[in-house]
């Protein structure tokens, strides 16, 4: 029994590592279709990673150990987060290691490391990117916390497996606050993952980039790990969203058989497909905001989450 749950844990983490680049590739493909371009193949991110791993690292002369260690730390935190988030099963040995608040903290650790690494070389763009990234971070965190607060009010837990179980137990009642919270969560997830209204993942225009500005000095295997970690982060955010708002198909406590696991994997892939297409649609329909508008955007997300909270407290209670 214990052994099998460790196996499931391993399967889940390995699956996350394996399909996270695929998810990014899928989004890129959808975006290309929506923008009337011919799409890159679905497996393009893997080819990219392979190419990067084979190249020689071009390391700036002043780079310190922190700069070289950061890609590994990023990858480590993201893999660990993927192992903790119940994307296919809730009965995981690691699930109790961090509740959703601690997961937000884990993402913050990754963000701080990346920002510090970006400042390490001492070029203007790295620091600029670091500053902007940290700014988006402190604007997004209150909104994200309010979303989690709302979930706590509904199901009395901040631990994601308990939330999934709780949601499954109350399937028939959908609280109106969930809709507000879900909207706020999507807005925060877009901002945190350097997607379009805040940042453009495919830009290399110096003045507008945030995430890419921090990666300018990275090359080869370091860049590969950072890119992989970024796609894992997007995957993780998607899975947190599924656990909070669309927990259908996730194998809960008790439903342990191989069949349930297969259904869970199929459900996850289905949800990712739809979410990726939706993300591409949002990115194609909206324009990137000026950086000074980012506070307004995230304040909007925050207000939505608070509105959800108030709706719950006034109506639900």
């Amino acid at each position, binding site marked *: 029994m214990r052994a099998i749950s460790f196996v499931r844990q391993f399967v889940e983490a390995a699956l996350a590592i394996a399909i996270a680049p695929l998810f990014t590739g899928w989004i890129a493909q959808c975006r290309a279709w929506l923008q009337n371009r011919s799409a890159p193949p679905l497996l393009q991110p893997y080819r990219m990673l392979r190419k990067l*791993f*084979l190249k*020689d*690292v*071009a*390391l700036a*002369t*002043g780079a310190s150990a*922190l700069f070289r260690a950061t890609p*590994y*730390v990023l990858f*480590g935190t993201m*893999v*660990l987060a993927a192992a903790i988030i119940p994307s296919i099963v809730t009965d995981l040995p690691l699930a*109790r*290691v*961090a*509740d959703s*608040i*601690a997961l937000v*903290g*884990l993402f*913050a*650790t990754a*963000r*701080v490391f990346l*920002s*510090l690494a970006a*400042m390490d*070389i*001492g*070029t*203007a*763009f790295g*620091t*600029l990117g670091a*500053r*902007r990234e*940290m700014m988006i*971070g*402190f604007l*997004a*965190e209150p909104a994200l*916390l*309010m979303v989690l*607060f709302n979930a*706590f009010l509904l199901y*009395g*837990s901040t*631990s994601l497996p*308990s939330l999934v179980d709780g949601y499954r137990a109350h399937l028939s009642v959908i609280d109106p606050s969930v809709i507000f919270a879900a909207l706020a969560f999507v807005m925060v997830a877009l901002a945190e993952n350097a997607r379009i209204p805040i940042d453009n993942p495919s830009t290399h225009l*110096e003045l507008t980039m945030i995430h890419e500005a921090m990666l300018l*000095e990275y090359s080869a*295997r370091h860049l590969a*790990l950072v890119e992989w970690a970024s796609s894992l982060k997007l995957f993780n955010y998607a899975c947190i969203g599924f656990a909070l708002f669309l927990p259908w198909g996730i194998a809960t406590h008790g439903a342990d058989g191989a069949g349930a696991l297969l259904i869970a994997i199929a459900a996850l892939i289905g949800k990712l497909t739809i979410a990726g297409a939706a993300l591409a649609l949002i990115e194609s329909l909206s324009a990137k905001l000026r950086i000074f508008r980012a506070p307004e955007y995230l304040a909007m997300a925050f207000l939505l989450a*608070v509105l959800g*909270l*108030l709706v719950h*407290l006034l109506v639900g*209670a």
Partner: protein
Amino acid sequence: MANTLAVHDLRFMLFLVAAWMMLGFAGFLRPHSTRFVARLLFPTGSLLCLGIALLAGLFLASGQAAQVVVLPLGLPDLPFHIRLDVLSGFFLLLLGVAGTGISTFAAGYFRSGEGTAPALLGLGYHLFLASMAMVILADDAYLFMVAWETMALSSYFLVTSRHRIPEIRRAGFLYLIMAHVGAVCILLSFGVLQGGSWQFTFDAMRAAHFTPFWATTAFLLALLGFGAKAGLVPMHVWLPEAHPAAPSPVSAMMSGLMLKTAIYGMLRISFDLLSVRFWQWGALLLALGLFSALFGAIFAAVQTDMKRLLAYSSIENVGLIFTAIGLSILFETSNMHLFAALALTAALVHSLNHALFKSLLFLTTGSVLHATKQRSLGKLGGLIRRMPWVASLALIGTLSIAGLPPLNGFVSEWLLLQSFLFTPQLPHAFLNMLIPLGAAALALTFALAAYVMVKFYGVIFLGQPREASLVNAHDANWLERLGLIWLAVGCVTIGAFPQLALLAVAPVTGKLIGQTVRLSSTVWWIAPIAREQASYSGLILLAGILSVVAITFICVRLLAHGRIRRTDAWDCGYPWQTSRMQDTAEGFGQPIRHMFGTFFRMDRNLPSPSDTAPRYRVYIEDRLWRAIYLPIARGVQKLADWIGILQGGRLSIYLLYSFLTLLALLVFVL
């Protein structure tokens, strides 16, 4: 057997405190020898700190009853009452643990030419330590005030140890004024607390009964007094002046330890001495604390002096602690004892954490200051390559204070957020909807703290050196490293084993609230309320990240290759970049100035486009300074001028005053 041991505990502690004082005076055997004072007395003091920590830890672990000693010192009929209970035990543990690191560092830090003679520094330093311990051990108002004033004065002389610099004298003066205004408030609070019995022992105060009015008066006076010492907004103005002025180990002591004595005093009065509490007090503390936290974080983000930045960050952390205490009072008065215990646990654990990481960071600024002679962030940079020891230990402090898992800052942050989750259950309409928004303010503060610390670490240690002289910077000496390592190990240990901190806090919440959070039996995780509700494991997170990093590293090396080519940084096709073109500390503060402009009074000189020697100057001031302090200062001045009219300078006028006074008294008597 246990009982005889128990009394020895406190006796032994008093012996150690006395030994501190002796150490202070021992410096006068060779008053000008830095070697004697720094290399012999300070390490001995550090061992005494360790002894205090061990005794306090043993006391907490053994679960003994409070121990009392009456010393026949002081005034006749007013002996010193001394008492060691769990609350003082916890704060002594904090004092001892952080003090060990600071004293070890100080042994390597103080060199000749710090301004004051080494023996005087040693005297001030050890008296400061001893008086803090006595504040915590005092069991009557008289001894408490004597120790409190000794603490204020000894730290004043330490702050002004480089008294030849006018700014430092000014900072010291401001500190002295605020310390005394605070002390007067505390004295008045004790005056109310004795409740007409004229017994100034804490036992008498516990037994006294108060009407809500007098209880609230005592509470508010205590809040003013201890708030002024802790740096709660708006009584915070001395803190960003005095902390940077002091030598770094003293800054570390003031920020890491002395602020905690104010927290201790606040807890002692509001939870122990006052038998009644009202939810309004909690709401007030919560509001003040949240505002201080946000205020401190925002101001820290725009500072350009590394020690001022840390001082503002102390205001932020004290705000967080007061927020947690306020929340605890709110829960406690609503009979939700478990959640009250959770909030109080958050406050105490955060006090301990702050003592560790803030001391660590202040000490690293001391090393940086010695190595570079620079305090301004605009003139530092790239020190990770010159000072790898200090840089890597400072990184631990930075990540801790930024509240990042798996280090200790996150533990208290997590506990505080967890306790906020239960605020909608408070039985006060409106408050139960308003306070959850406080959690958002809290999240903003935590994230801003991370922003501030990225700025702090990035500008000092990363990037290119902004001044040519930084190339000669040297790393800390071995004693300094030892002190830093001690504190950093403390940060990592509490991060990985938050159970230790919870265990140390449990007796305190048990006594003050009558309830403790759930201490899980496994070493793996903590789940303060219930396993299903929330759990956290610092150890598994740390081990997990490290093992994934190790596996990834090995896999990358095995499957790919390790080839590296050193090149120049990408210069955007403009090869004439200098290190002065990096983002500055001002630049890093720009988004904050932009977004939170209402908090500041800003003076900015922008160069015109045609300037050949452009200079950019920005000056940021606290609005509260003009709104509160300058009017008060002007009022005092005006009052003094009025009273000055009496002083004519002629003898006949003074004789007339005496005559008139006599006359008035005669009329009064007859």
